[in-house]
């Protein structure tokens, strides 16, 4: 039974175009009108900021946001767990109202969403094997080394902007990983000489793996809670909630609990 293809490339593209147009219209209709209860979004897998332990979502961001919202007139209805890269689309589309995911405030993200005041400052740790002889003390010492980082993180930006761009490290010497655990794994496998990750995350790995932080590269990046672009009311409530928990000592207790000496 001869059968010719009835859908050519042009028809396919037209169909796709129609779908995209429908979607952009759908995207304009905004989400729920209920402003009092909030759904929070996060991406577990970023210890000690957010991770799953025994099936429960725990971490610094989780407890901090819960404390901040408790100090405001809003109520938290629950947490949505998504992949990190899904968080901004989820926020924009109203699937979640606020994001607490160790998200660094930067210009690119600031264009897509709004941020609360910064609630934590972080730098990047340059991590090496404990038993290795390689112990760099500045980015210049990494000349010719193989380096690794998690895709889409500030550690990757440091490698791209300050090592590859400057010619310290050839691009072929950079390995990108889907998450921090695999980066650490590959460091131990001796496939890379150093990995660059957030200081608090490095500390939580150093505690249970034979790795150490060689030095800290100051990036001065700051974490903020993400809210929908233009939702000034919620951003304001989060900011005053942050002030409250800083003043009443809750913030200090939480940093001690999650970043204190192990």
């Amino acid at each position, binding site marked *: 039974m001869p059968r010719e293809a009835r859908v050519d490339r042009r028809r396919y593209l037209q169909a796709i175009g129609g779908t995209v147009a429908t*979607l952009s219209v759908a995207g304009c209709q905004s989400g729920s009108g209920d402003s009092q209860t909030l759904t929070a979004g996060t991406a577990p897998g970023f210890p000690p900021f957010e991770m*799953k*332990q025994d099936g429960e979502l725990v971490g610094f961001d989780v407890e901090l946001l819960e404390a901040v919202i408790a100090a405001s007139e809003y109520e938290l209805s629950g947490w949505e767990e998504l992949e990190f890269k899904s968080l901004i689309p989820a926020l924009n589309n109203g699937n979640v109202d606020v994001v607490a995911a160790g998200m660094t405030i930067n210009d690119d993200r600031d264009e897509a969403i709004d941020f609360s005041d910064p609630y934590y400052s972080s730098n990047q740790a340059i991590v090496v094997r404990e038993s290795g002889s390689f112990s760099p003390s500045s980015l210049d010492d990494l000349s010719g080394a193989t380096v690794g980082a998690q895709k889409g993180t500030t550690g990757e930006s440091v490698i791209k902007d300050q090592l590859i761009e400057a010619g310290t490290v050839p691009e072929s010497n950079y390995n990108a990983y889907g998450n921090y655990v695999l980066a650490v794994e590959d460091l131990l496998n001796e496939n890379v000489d150093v990995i660059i990750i957030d200081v608090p995350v490095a500390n939580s790995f150093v505690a*249970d793996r034979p790795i150490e932080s060689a030095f800290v590269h100051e990036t001065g990046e700051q974490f903020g809670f993400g809210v929908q672009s233009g939702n000034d009311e919620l951003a304001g409530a989060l900011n005053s909630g942050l002030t409250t928990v800083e003043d009443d000592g809750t913030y200090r207790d939480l940093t001690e609990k999650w970043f204190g000496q192990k």
Partner: protein
Amino acid sequence: MAAILLQTADWLFVANNWGLLLGGTAVTIALTVSSILLGFVVGFPAGAIEVYGSDRARRLVEQVGVVLRGTPLLVIIMILYFGLSISSSAFVTATIALGLRSAAYQSQIFRGALQSVDDGQLEAARAVAMSRFEAIRHVVVPQALRRSVPGFQNEFTIVLKDTSIAIVIGIGELLTTGQNLYEGGQSTAALEIFLAVSLVYFVLTFATNRSLDKLSDYYAVPEGTT
């Protein structure tokens, strides 16, 4: 290297968390079953329309099928969840995404099977006074369904493993549960968890394939022994 990667303590960690992995497995199975069923309910009629339908219906089904087959599953899931927000439940969204994609593939499995039944069968059925619909329903479809089992088996396995893509909208299925375990608990156990999760996928695939083999044998058209 193996000594670093495959430590007893890490296997113990996997064993201690078997309950969580089992929960993830249950979600994986539920998602597979609901998606396959939706795929069958939509895909079988779609396949039949492509063979017997009117020109207009056939063209419509074909075009929708091409779009669904030509778009990566990840994109379908993201569009349904973040774009159209068809449901606030990630599970329902993932079922619809996986189900529609599967329907597009299943329609081709069934189209091929229906077309493989000799035209003479239809003519013979008509000759004994069956209507066209009756002839298709009672003579062609039973034979076609039998022939579609191998292709269906394939599709089942694909859907089972593709449920892991639902991780992107945060469904706690098997792979997500595994990933959460090593990211939040014992980070050294990554490889052990991957191996354990792979083993579960293997067992599930093996079991479904064997069951479908049995089904295929049971319903096979009896053949002469000479």
